[in-house]
């Protein structure tokens, strides 16, 4: 007797999501193997936005690299500036004046709020909201970008930090404006939460989706909100307490269920903590110099240096090798989202197509930084 195959035999299909796809946040491609709508396998393909950023960095002088760091993660140019500038300062052992440190912290924390608001908006877009949360987030971002423009002259490509300080002092009228923006931020976050946190559809779409256990997260060296949503207490602001972060009182929110929803909650809570830091910084900011005088032709001593900061997306590090000339000999960027993205296949297997975009949105990538 022959055995009869009773199970319906089905074939898997391969779907190329991207490089041109509405929710890949740029040009990013995923080769997905599908069984019906369930994902069997996923392979991320990166590099469509590769711009030789690191090679260009070797050609440029140290100063000329600052505008290029703006264009890494174009949502948070200020923190990219800070990471690079601090690396060079570490290399050349430059002391930064007190006031400049505070200005930097203010700018970077504002950037964190911008980034998280946009990240949540983009996540909701991926979940299928018709742009409403995204536009509310962009409104708040606009107010903060106005502050950036006031201080640095440009909204997104700020190019504001310099070795040993910042480009210029804060303009007159900046502080009152900053205070009113910061005072209005909690209301914005509350409204955002009212719109989303309890929303049943949001919950069933996000809870239990894309679970990233702590050991896997550490194994893939994920950082940033992604890691903290997996319950690992690791915030470089606390661990290294670089710059003057040891002077501020803030908490590091952690996730308990390790899923997309936790990443959303962690981002919301980090926004609140940033507001706390901002309030303290506004109170403490001293008067004084904002930059130190450096020679026009800046040549750091020979040596190499790695400096990392907690950028809104995770650990952003710059590795510089100097041969004593005006240009770096090697200029390497450790970009957080590139490394966070490698965990994507792990997160997606067994989920539906619709979950892929949610998980991708919750990782919060900017392709400019992934591909550099």
């Amino acid at each position, binding site marked *: 007797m022959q055995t009869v195959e009773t199970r319906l035999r089905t074939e898997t299909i391969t779907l190329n999501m991207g490089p041109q796809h509405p929710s890949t946040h740029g040009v990013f491609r995923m080769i997905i193997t599908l069984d019906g709508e369930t994902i069997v396998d996923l392979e991320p393909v990166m590099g469509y936005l590769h711009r030789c950023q690191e090679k260009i960095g070797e050609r440029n002088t140290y100063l000329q690299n600052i*505008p290029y760091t703006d264009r890494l993660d174009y949502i948070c140019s200020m923190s990219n500036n800070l990471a690079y500038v601090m690396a060079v300062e570490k290399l050349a052992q430059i002391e930064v004046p007190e006031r400049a440190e505070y200005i930097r912290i203010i700018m970077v924390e504002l950037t964190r709020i911008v980034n998280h608001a946009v990240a949540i908006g983009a996540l909701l877009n991926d979940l299928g909201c018709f742009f409403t949360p995204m536009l509310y987030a962009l409104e708040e971002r606009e107010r903060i970008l106005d502050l950036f423009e006031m201080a640095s002259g440009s909204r997104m490509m700020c190019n504001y930090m310099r070795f040993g300080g910042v480009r210029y002092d804060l303009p007159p009228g900046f502080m009152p404006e900053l205070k009113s923006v910061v005072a209005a931020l909690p209301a914005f976050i509350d409204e955002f939460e009212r719109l989303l946190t309890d929303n049943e559809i949001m919950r069933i779409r996000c809870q239990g989706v894309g679970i990233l256990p702590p050991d896997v997260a550490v194994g893939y060296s994920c950082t940033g909100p992604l890691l903290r949503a997996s319950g690992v207490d690791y915030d470089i602001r606390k661990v290294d307490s670089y710059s003057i972060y040891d002077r501020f009182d803030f908490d590091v929110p952690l996730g308990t269920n390790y899923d997309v929803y936790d990443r959303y909650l962690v981002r919301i809570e980090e926004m609140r903590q940033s507001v706390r830091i901002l309030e303290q910084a506004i109170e403490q900011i001293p008067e004084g110099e904002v930059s130190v005088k450096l020679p026009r032709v800046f040549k750091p001593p020979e040596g190499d240096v790695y400096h990392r900061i907690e950028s809104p997306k995770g650990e952003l590090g710059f590795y510089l090798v100097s041969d004593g000339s005006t240009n770096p000999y090697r200029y390497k960027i450790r970009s957080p989202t590139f490394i966070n993205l490698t965990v994507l296949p792990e997160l997606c297997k067994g989920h539906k197509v619709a979950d892929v975009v949610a998980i991708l949105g919750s990782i919060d990538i900017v392709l400019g930084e992934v591909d550099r």
Partner: protein
Amino acid sequence: MLGLGILKGLSVTLRHFVETYVSDLKRFPHRYAPQGRARRLRPTERGIFTVQYPEERLEMFPRFRGALMQLTNPETDIPKCTGCGICARFCPVGVIEVVRAEEKRDGQYVPQSYSWDLSACLFCGLCVESCPFGALYHTPEYELSTYGRQKGELIYDLDRLLAWGQKYAPLGTPPVEQEE
């Protein structure tokens, strides 16, 4: 739970919906800001957030990094620029080209030619920052598109840069210094 969260979300969007009409009423009967000068909304203000661009525009901050301009020394009426070429050296993308003139004018070096290629400029401001003579500054100009790039419309020579300097900083002081 059981749709209450959805209702909460709906109330938020409805509030935004109503508030846009309230902000419309405040502006009534005008649709656009007076003289086309849009105002940035205060952080606590709500309602329509967008700026209706061609009809109304935002005013740029003094530090805004727009197109470049060359300043003229109002006393001697010659360009402040000495053609030293430092700005060209500092530009990360090399879009500035300067040639210094052979002979001085009024005891000052002047550029023989100066060109700035808008199409590849990063608007980073390093040129302005590096100029030792304070000759270069940003205009608040941001509508810089042209219909083609073949005719060299995007490459600004000294005369066009100086003309902008006359327009935006007739006294030879850039707006940011006037303010501070």
